[in-house]
């Protein structure tokens, strides 16, 4: 069976349980002093890479975690290694990169590191764009399976992916190399054990400046402003089912 050299990109984002607040200048969301974590969809992709190795111990030869972001993103990469990634690479930048720029960085990493399978989260929960995996597949000319809920690697190096589509699911078969993006039902990510967290501190983590990758990462979008959504005035209560029906009629909903 073809050796699998897996790349798993991860992003450091505001923790999913924190309610984000727009900053006073209305230029973005306040991140100072806010708990940050690995994007939850990226935990799924790391987990899937590890499970592929557990199912095919000799086939999966290397799992590389990658992140583009501030120096602090090293924490996220250490988490990925504590879960089971072998090593990590950080493209360091303090500028927020757009999905196309990240896809171009990944394209370079795929070439430099000779990858043949990339597993990404289907979206990051900050920008909610949901583009990077598909853009990468397009740049590389590889097959893609987005919103995966099951990934099976067959004997002939074919990858069968069940993906979530509107109203149900769809099964695709891909040849390698390929790009897969993870959806919520793909698996349940493990917690890193303390011994594994300790071991991860010794795993190799390479830092390089984004400029060293030699790809064009300039912004194409200018953020004009960021605002809080219009608040909804809720809070109206009724006493019983009769009151509920009557109120819904008043509101024209029935």
């Amino acid at each position, binding site marked *: 069976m073809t050796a699998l050299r897996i790349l798993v990109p991860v992003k450091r984002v505001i923790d999913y349980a924190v309610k984000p607040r727009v900053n006073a200048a209305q230029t973005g969301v306040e991140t100072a002093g806010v708990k940050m974590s690995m994007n939850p969809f990226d935990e799924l992709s790391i987990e899937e890479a590890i499970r592929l190795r557990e199912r095919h111990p000799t086939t999966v030869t290397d799992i590389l975690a990658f992140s583009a972001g501030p120096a602090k993103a090293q924490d996220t990469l250490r988490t990925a290694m504590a879960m089971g990634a072998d090593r990590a690479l950080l493209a360091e930048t303090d500028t927020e990169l757009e999905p196309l720029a990240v896809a171009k960085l990944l394209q370079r990493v795929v070439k430099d590191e000779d990858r043949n399978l990339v597993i990404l989260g289907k979206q990051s929960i900050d920008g909610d764009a949901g583009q990077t995996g598909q853009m990468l597949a397009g740049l590389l000319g590889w097959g893609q399976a987005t919103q995966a809920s099951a990934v099976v690697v067959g004997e002939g190096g074919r990858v069968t992916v069940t993906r979530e589509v509107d109203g149900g699911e769809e099964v695709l078969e891909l040849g390698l190399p390929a790009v897969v993006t993870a959806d919520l039902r793909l698996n349940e990510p493990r917690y890193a054990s303390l011994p594994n967290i300790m071991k991860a501190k010794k795993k190799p983590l390479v830092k390089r400046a984004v400029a060293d990758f030699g790809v064009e990462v300039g912004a194409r979008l200018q953020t004009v402003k960021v605002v*809080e*959504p219009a608040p909804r005035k809720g809070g109206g209560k009724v006493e019983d089912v009769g009151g509920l029906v009557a109120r819904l009629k008043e509101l*024209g909903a029935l």
Partner: protein
Amino acid sequence: LSTLAVLEHKEGNLLPQSLPVITAATKLGGTVTALLAGTDAASVAAQVAKLNGVSEVLTVSNGAYDKSLAENFAPMLQENIKAGGFTHVVAAHSAFGKNIMPRLSALLDVQQISDVIEIHDDSTFVRPIYAGNAIATVKSSDDIKVLTIRGTAFPAAAEGSGSAAAVQESSADPKVESSTTWVSENLAKSERPDLGTATRVVSGGRGLKDKDNFDKLMPPLADALGAAIGASRAAVDSGFADNSLQVGQTGKVVAPQLYLAVGISGAIQHLAGMKDSKVIAAINKDADAPIFQVADVGLVADLFTAVPELTEKLKSEK
């Protein structure tokens, strides 16, 4: 300024999520060319040609596009955009649009704008970020603007009274081989309205406790209202309901006339998927549940008695 609206169809019919795409395309201000690809493209084109706002319909009648595989669909779109000199490309933020448009954007070397809810002008767009906890206005400097739009944010295009737009078979079909093959699909069959476009939605959460209760209480309530059924992520994760019914940041975004949440506490990820509904009603036994902060009408009650009572009351009033 000319816009290509990429539309979806199935079994010879235009899909409802494509109707707001045409409306969004008209808001950009130029001509709107609708594109349909696949075996049935020409027959669906006749329906599309009658819709308000459509200037022209372009068909790519090739069965290779029937399964909407991004590997050949995106290059085909790229060729058509080049041939037609389009400045804007719009598709739904549906499974189809999410899969294909970013690949297209990479081929065009442009930064796509996903899940657009408002169009200010031909380069300025509004979109939710952080699960709708913030709303960003962005201005694109790309030569070609690629957008996916949130269907509930734009009205559906209606059939016009004027003459139908011209239908033309495209000569741009690069016939790229797809390395990916389509194997099968398993779609939930339902007689009820489609969740994404229904005018009424009843949604069940963890408060229903198990799948038996969900199946016993939710369908009769939905039928009494003529509503689609939805579910919270907690209910889906616990196996009460199929994943395709999930409403929220990572599931479907709905904005019906009435959204009735049953046994749903109202996590921010769930609210992101339904807070633009016209009227929100909630039944929950916990008076402090966050859902009540957004609900126009809240009933603090045990859903196991309130829901059957409500269902009976609605049925008797029919």
